[in-house]
């Protein structure tokens, strides 16, 4: 093993890691953007709940290689294809956790807010969503870690970010880039997860004391 490959390619590794992060961030961001309203809708309209959850878990069942390939006619061999596919995968966790989070809010709390004169929107934004936050954040953590590891499947269409290191290592019969790719992916997942835990602590100060 020629480990010196890693310092020799430090610049490339940084570039590719940033690309990996950008793809992950975009997918998770759009995932949240879609999942929050969908989760809210499923929560408010019980009849839609099973449909929304059913469709998102069906989409989740489609193997990532297949989903990326199926998106090719629309977005081609671009990072967008991977990002769109990953956005779809985040939905199953994000929608489910949004619904579960909102359902975990005791009805009496929302009723109290309404009784104090809050309208529905204000109750939702200032009471229900904050209380649902821990469950939503738990979903966000799972979705983020999952997305970080799934970006590399994009190697199938030449857009795997850190996953391209696996192709590189495989084609040159050289293990170091593959190991580097795996280790960096794990580190990114670890750091992202820790950051999200931090964000959650900041956003839910009432959880820090007590319980």
């Amino acid at each position, binding site marked *: 093993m020629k480990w010196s490959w890693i310092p020799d390619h430090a610049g490339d590794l940084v570039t590719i890691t940033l690309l990996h992060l950008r793809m992950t961030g975009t997918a998770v961001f759009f995932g949240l953007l879609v999942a929050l309203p969908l989760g809210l809708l499923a929560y408010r309209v019980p009849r839609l709940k099973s449909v929304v959850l059913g469709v998102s878990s*069906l989409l*989740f*069942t*489609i*193997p*990532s*290689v*297949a*989903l990326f*390939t*199926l998106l*090719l*006619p629309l977005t081609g061999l671009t990072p967008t294809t991977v990002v769109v596919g990953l956005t779809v995968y985040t939905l199953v966790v994000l929608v489910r956790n949004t619904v579960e989070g909102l359902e975990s809010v005791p009805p009496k709390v929302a009723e109290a807010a309404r009784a104090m004169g809050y309208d529905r929107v204000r109750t939702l934004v200032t009471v229900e969503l904050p209380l649902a936050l821990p469950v939503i954040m738990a979903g966000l953590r*799972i979705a983020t*870690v*999952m997305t*970080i*590891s*799934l970006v*590399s*499947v994009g*190697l*199938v*269409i030449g857009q*795997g970010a*850190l*996953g391209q*290191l*696996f192709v590189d*290592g*495989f084609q040159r*019969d050289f*293990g170091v880039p*593959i*190991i580097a*790719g*795996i280790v960096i*992916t*794990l580190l990114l*997942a*670890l750091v992202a*997860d820790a950051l999200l835990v931090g964000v959650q602590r900041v956003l839910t100060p009432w959880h820090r004391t007590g319980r």
Partner: protein
Amino acid sequence: MGELFAEILRWFTTGEHWSGPDGVPAQVGTHLVYSVVATVIAALIALPIGLLIGHTGRGAFLAINLSGFGRALPSFGVVILAFQLSGLSLVPIYLALVLLAVPVMVTNTYAGMAAVDHDVRDAARGVGLTGWQVLWQVEVPLAFPLILAGVRIATIQVVATATIAAYLGFGGLGRYVFDGLAQRDLAQALAGAVLLAVVAIALDQALRALQKPLTPRGLRRSNR
């Protein structure tokens, strides 16, 4: 778009795509063999570990965090590395698939066991059941839905990851996708993707169908 759709249809209706060692039935079979063998081996390893941790309560930290680690592992990287480091054969591919399927099954099995009400467990001990009987007659039936959910997630994951076998020169449904992409034959790649999606969904639904008959009668109503 309509053109492409017609091409995919043509691919599926071409007789030669359905026969021989590269035909659809053979590749579906190969893919299922990879997936089922890996999942079964993984279950044989993961379920006892999950049950042991759940029953004794020892190692809970490991069980809880294992699935997070499994989720973070880039599956294609692990398979390619295993393949390259140990012998360019199917065995390392199987090993990697098993490795990837174990964590989520351990975590779910443990979660199912941990969710069993302490009072129920105590009551079972109180009426004189041995530890072994508590495990098999009380804990496992109660934990079953979550255990099966873990097996389902692991199966989906293995089916998806097994496509990489074709990238490494073996068979399975990844064959059509990788060949199609390499030969710039989009219809073939899309046909492969459709087959892959259908097989994954069918397998998942089959496992889901098992959930009801295998769940103890007393628990069925309260379950989704």
